[in-house]
């Protein structure tokens, strides 16, 4: 468990006056994978860069694992490792050399670094590419080598800013498997704008939008917090169910979606079974939660919340 505390965190980029973070408050005992989601420009990278001591906030406090990262960055740098957004391998070094020099920069003895680099390449299943230059590797393999650099280090807290952006579905899934292995002994803080990825991987999810931290918690906590943990989908647009308590959305001509509590979902299901309608009931997806949180779900029909 790693405790992360943010109090009144603001970041305004001076030149443009862009407010990238606005009053972010957070107190969480994080473990496994903590994922920051949000659209482009939400402030994910800014947040990661502040937590990982690359960027000073304009205002506010950040305590990571008991260390004030704003005033004592050196104290946390022993424990963290980062792959920045859009970072890439150094093109004139082989895969293994890229990992090796990173470990040397962290202060490992040469022999130790070589061992660690090789074992990381093994773990990632890319040993065969060890002596290849980056330009000879596929995008997916390159990304794996990048992940191997931080994986091979002793850091306990790993930041990955959009590690899967631009990868093909197979590579992405391979990377997920690796992250799931990594999280057994490290805390991984990653960002993504793929919501199904966040849902699949995360122990905790933080939702950022326009510089504000809207929610933090496990997917189940997020479901509860919005008040609609279940989504009923009815494939019969004409069907009338009186007295629905929940958020009703007309997806298209033939599909109706109702977000509601478990109890209400049961009641609706009963009725639907009796009227022989086609329907499905699922826990509300992160995607739906996300759109509800950022307020982009259009309540096309109506929203009833009767007592």
């Amino acid at each position, binding site marked *: 468990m790693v405790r992360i505390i943010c109090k009144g965190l603001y970041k305004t980029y001076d030149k443009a006056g862009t407010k990238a973070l606005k009053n972010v408050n957070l107190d969480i005992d994080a473990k496994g994978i903590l994922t920051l989601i949000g659209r482009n420009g939400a402030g994910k990278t800014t947040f990661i860069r502040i937590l990982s001591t690359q960027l000073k906030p304009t205002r506010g406090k950040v305590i990571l694992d008991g260390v004030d990262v704003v005033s004592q960055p050196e104290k946390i740098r022993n424990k963290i490792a980062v792959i920045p957004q859009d970072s890439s391998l*150094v093109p004139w070094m082989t895969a293994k050399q890229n990992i090796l020099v990173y470990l040397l920069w*962290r202060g490992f003895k040469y022999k130790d670094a070589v061992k660690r680099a090789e074992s990381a390449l093994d773990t990632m299943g890319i040993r065969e590419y060890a002596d290849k230059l980056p330009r000879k590797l596929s995008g997916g393999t390159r990304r794996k080598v990048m992940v191997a650099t931080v994986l091979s280090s002793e850091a306990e807290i790993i930041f990955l800013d959009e590690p899967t952006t631009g990868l093909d579905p197979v590579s992405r899934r391979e990377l997920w498997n690796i992250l799931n292995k990594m999280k057994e002994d490290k805390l991984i803080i990653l960002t993504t704008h793929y919501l199904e990825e966040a849902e699949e991987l995360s122990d905790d999810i933080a939702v950022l939008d326009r510089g504000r931290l809207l929610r933090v918690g496990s997917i189940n906590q997020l479901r509860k917090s919005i008040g609609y943990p279940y989504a009923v989908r009815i494939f019969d647009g004409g069907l009338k169910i009186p007295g629905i308590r929940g958020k009703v959305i007309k997806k298209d001509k033939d599909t109706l979606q109702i977000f509601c509590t478990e109890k209400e979902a049961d009641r609706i299901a009963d009725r639907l079974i009796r009227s022989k309608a086609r329907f499905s009931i699922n826990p509300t997806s992160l995607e739906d939660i996300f759109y509800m949180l950022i307020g982009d779900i259009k309540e096309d029909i109506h929203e009833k919340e009767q007592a």
Partner: protein
Amino acid sequence: MKRSRLSQLSASVLANAIYAMQNFPVMLINTILAPFGFLLIIFFVSHGTLLNVAIIGALIMTMVTSGTSLQGDLTHLKNDMKLQDMLVSSPVSPIIYIAGMALSEIVFSIPNIVVLGLLAVVFIHMSYVSAAIIAAVMLLTFAFSVSLGFFISTISRDIIEGWAFMGLISMLLATLPPVYYPITYIPLPFRYLAYLSPTTYSAMIAQNSIGFLSLSSSGIYLSWTILLGISFFILFLGIKRSRWREG
């Protein structure tokens, strides 16, 4: 864990010099040949009379190039590979990183220094004192160009800006100053331009030490003072104003 400073220093040298040369040997050929272009031109044009000066000039220029290369390399690694961000969020200190990178530029120029050094031994008959003076001048030249390179790299946000700064630096440190020939060859109003460049003072001291220029003793003191002053100022600027963690 106990972290080894030596490992941290060697990381920069391996990353920026050794592995680069190992994987791309053609770079080595390029760096070895680079200073000879001008040396040969001067040699031919002066019918051999300026050979001594040109060899010393090439040695000094090698040091200047190290500084400008450092700037290019740092900017490239920082902006295109985000390497600096990775290292900021790691236990390596900026001083060690930069010192290692500076060292890597020297390592890169070793073949050069060796070849030019041999030429100097063969063609210039200088005393140990002159040799020591030239070594000191080279060291100072390296110090200010590396500091300047580092400073510029931290304030340039992308490679285009980096290139622009690099062009300006090269002009100031390499094109303006009379490195391959005595300053007296430059007609007067233009000579003042040359005095703007710290490299001019490096060259004047070096040329004086092999007897190609005869500076008065006050001229020598003044040159040293200006050279040291500029070097410390730029070094100070590099350390003080450069950004490791962004504000």
